[in-house]
């Protein structure tokens, strides 16, 4: 009997579903540890939420339970060229979270106290000092909290580069390859995939990582652990290049508009929501775009004469408590999850990949993951409605 020519079979230590920044970095760290890895991506690596997010590389504003991972990610971002071979337009511009009222300023001060032990280097700037340091913001804020080593990067090129770096080290990376079927077998997992070109692929792996972003819920559910994950579509826009006026990544306490200006002068702004075209695609909503533009020009009058040349959004998975799910399955040995980053996965992604690799190798991660266990939603069986925008 001759084997079908269009059926390929792979046997690896680890199979990863999803080639975003989390799956890509997991593939990279696992490969560096010597594991054989197959990374399966339905679209292109880093083309979904990992590649179309705002590009904030930000620790400030995260809840304390995320900060150990976020701090590790900060160190990894500092070694980006060594890890993935490119600079990725990463700059430590500083992240300034604005307070537009005394109450918001008090809330920033409280946050600073709460996270003091993690050493983010936060600095409250207010009053005359604020106006002297940020004349461009005028009196549109009473002060802010600066995280000097936070910054921004270009997600379109950074996120795909993780999978690419893993491939250079020997990981098998298959794009345009949706997974049709997954099952637990005696000693691991069996995955059946069909490349969009029609060829079939069968992967057997001892360990399975579920890193498929907004689409992760299905895989988790197929292993008997449904998660109240919902999809939302953060709305972003960019201007043509204009004279540099903003050298820090700006967010606003309490949510709303956020903005950064890239090296060549384009201003990237975000806020509000898009809408789903179907399960895989989304488009910015008109009211979100127009509201975002109005809020952005109120905050940055420099945009008065500028144009929005492009808007976009993506499909991102949100959990009810806005914390991700990271760690072992509660039902299935050898299965690990990492998804539900709720609009804040880009900065932390590389450290999540590293933590997953440690989980596979050692059975435990050196960063605490308790807050992210999947069982915390046991009994929560309904996905919430569209969540409000997260603060940036």
């Amino acid at each position, binding site marked *: 009997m001759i084997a079908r020519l269009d059926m390929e079979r792979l046997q690896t230590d680890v199979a990863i579903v999803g080639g975003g920044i989390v799956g890509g970095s997991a593939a990279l760290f696992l490969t560096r540890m010597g594991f054989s890895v197959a990374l399966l991506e339905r679209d292109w690596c880093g083309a979904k939420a990992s*590649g179309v997010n705002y590009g904030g590389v930000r620790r400030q504003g995260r809840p304390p339970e995320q900060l150990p991972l976020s701090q590790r990610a900060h160190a990894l971002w500092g070694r980006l060229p060594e890890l993935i071979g490119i600079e990725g337009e990463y700059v430590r511009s500083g992240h300034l979270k604005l307070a537009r009222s005394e109450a918001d300023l008090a809330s920033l001060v409280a946050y600073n106290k709460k996270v003091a032990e993690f050493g983010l280097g936060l600095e409250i700037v207010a009053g005359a000092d604020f106006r002297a340091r940020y004349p461009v913001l005028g009196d549109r804020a009473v002060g802010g909290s600066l995280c000097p080593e936070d910054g921004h990067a270009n997600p*379109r090129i950074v996120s795909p580069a993780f999978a690419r770096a893993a491939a250079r080290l020997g990981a098998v990376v298959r794009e345009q390859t949706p997974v049709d079927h997954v099952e637990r077998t005696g000693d691991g997992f069996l995955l059946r995939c069909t490349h969009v070109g029609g060829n079939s692929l069968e992967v057997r792996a001892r360990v399975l990582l579920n890193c498929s972003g907004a689409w992760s819920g299905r895989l988790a559910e197929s292993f008997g652990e449904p998660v109240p994950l919902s999809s939302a579509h953060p709305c972003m826009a960019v201007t043509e290049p204009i004279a540099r006026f903003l050298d820090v990544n700006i967010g606003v306490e309490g949510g709303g508009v956020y903005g950064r200006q890239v090296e060549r002068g384009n201003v990237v702004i975000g806020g509000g929501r898009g809408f789903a075209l179907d399960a895989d695609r989304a488009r910015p909503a008109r009211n*979100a*775009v*127009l509201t975002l533009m109005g809020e952005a020009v109120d905050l940055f009058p420099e945009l008065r004469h500028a*144009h929005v*040349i492009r808007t976009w959004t993506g499909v991102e998975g949100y959990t009810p408590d806005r914390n991700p799910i990271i760690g072992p399955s509660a039902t299935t040995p050898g299965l690990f999850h990492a998804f539900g980053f709720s609009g804040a996965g880009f900065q932390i992604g590389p450290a999540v990949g590293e933590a997953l690799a440690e989980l596979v190798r050692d059975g435990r991660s050196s960063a605490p993951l308790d807050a992210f266990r999947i069982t915390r939603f046991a009994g929560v069986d309904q996905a919430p409605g569209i969540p409000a925008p997260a603060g940036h």
Partner: protein
Amino acid sequence: MSPAHVTSFRPVIVGAGPAGVRAAETLVAAGLRPLVIDEAARWGGQIYRQPPEGFQRTKRALYGFEAGKADALHRAMADILPGVDYRPRSLVWNIEAGALDVTCNGGSEGGRSETVPFSHLILAPGATDRVLPFPGWTTPGVFTLGGSQVALKFQGCAVGSRVLFLGTGPLLYLVAYQYAKAGAEVAGVLDTAGFADQARAVPGMLRDPATFAKGLYYVGWLRARGVPIHSGVRPVRVEGDGRVEALVWQRNGREERTACDALAFGLGLRPETQLADLAGCRFRFDAMDRAWVPERTPAGRTSVPGVYVAGDGAGIAGADAAEMAGERAALALLEDIGRPFDAARVAHLEQRLAAAARFRRALTGAFPFPADWAASVPDDTPVCRCEEVTAGTLRQAARVGEAPEINRLKALTRVGMGRCQGRMCGAAATELLAQALGTGPDGVGRLRGQPPIKPLPFSAGIRDEEKAS
């Protein structure tokens, strides 16, 4: 987001060129009152673009042989103005949930955005020049053919005092003729098509003897005035520091140099399809246009009920065909809402549209796309001038296998991410990617449409004070 629910019948036409005006005329004749939205200050489209009011030149001087058609179209719209809601200087920048988003004041600063629901939509957005870059094409003084013609028709100015024309297609000879008639010195007409292409295409073009004769007339007229005309030309480079001084070109491997202070170039037209994309229309690849166009029936119906396309925006067919297609789409709309319509007129229009399509096939043969361009453009030539992406960057991304598809190429290289959103550079990027991958332009996918389809000024944004009110 609140989807705009249309509770009443509201036909909207986007574009007031040959297709849009004839569509409006047909609806008005049936007793309907369409809303006509147009980017220009006055109706006529690009081909019959009207000069600003008070402008002195005659239609004969502005439109040449086409003066009669231009005049008829202008009058048709003038006659129905009381029966339409007409919004000039307005940009439709988005379509969402059965409504258009429109900025007034030409989309320039100060324009507010308004959401305009429609029940039926006829899209007649026209076309732009198709541009393939070559060394020096971003030098000041290099214009598109269509742009050069607009400067002449709309502003009464020439793009230079000694203008060289390069490219292919009927527009090449027409604009050169119009420039010479207007008093500009025409340094030459350089056709990328070969003489053999044109000879082969003669039988097909004789299907429309009047148009064919006009083409011959322009060529003869230009030759009689000593304008050098060459076929089978390929551009080598623009010379000039800060301003065009000459074009170096080659034919049969021999280089020549023509001095000029402006260069007008274009390789046919490409349809404007972003609005059909945002409306959710299904697309198909058109081998003649080498572009994706909305699927449509001969009547102009798209895959989305109530959305129709007509004119060059639905696939390049020229102004005469656009007038017929606009009328045909409006008749389809009338049929779809159960109004009486002239079935004999429908049959007549479809017959003539089919003939126009056959003529268009012959024209494509006479002025073929220079398929060797993608292989020949040097690596350091900028393809996307907004984002400064070169041909070499695109080839590199294709070569290492990272970009097997046009949207991926855009994500990784920024091509098409600038002000034009790929309207200008998309055709070139597609051809380059296809060539690098050893496939055709149909094999690399289609750039996804995103709002805004043209740059949107911040004045369109909703401010706090408005939200409060």
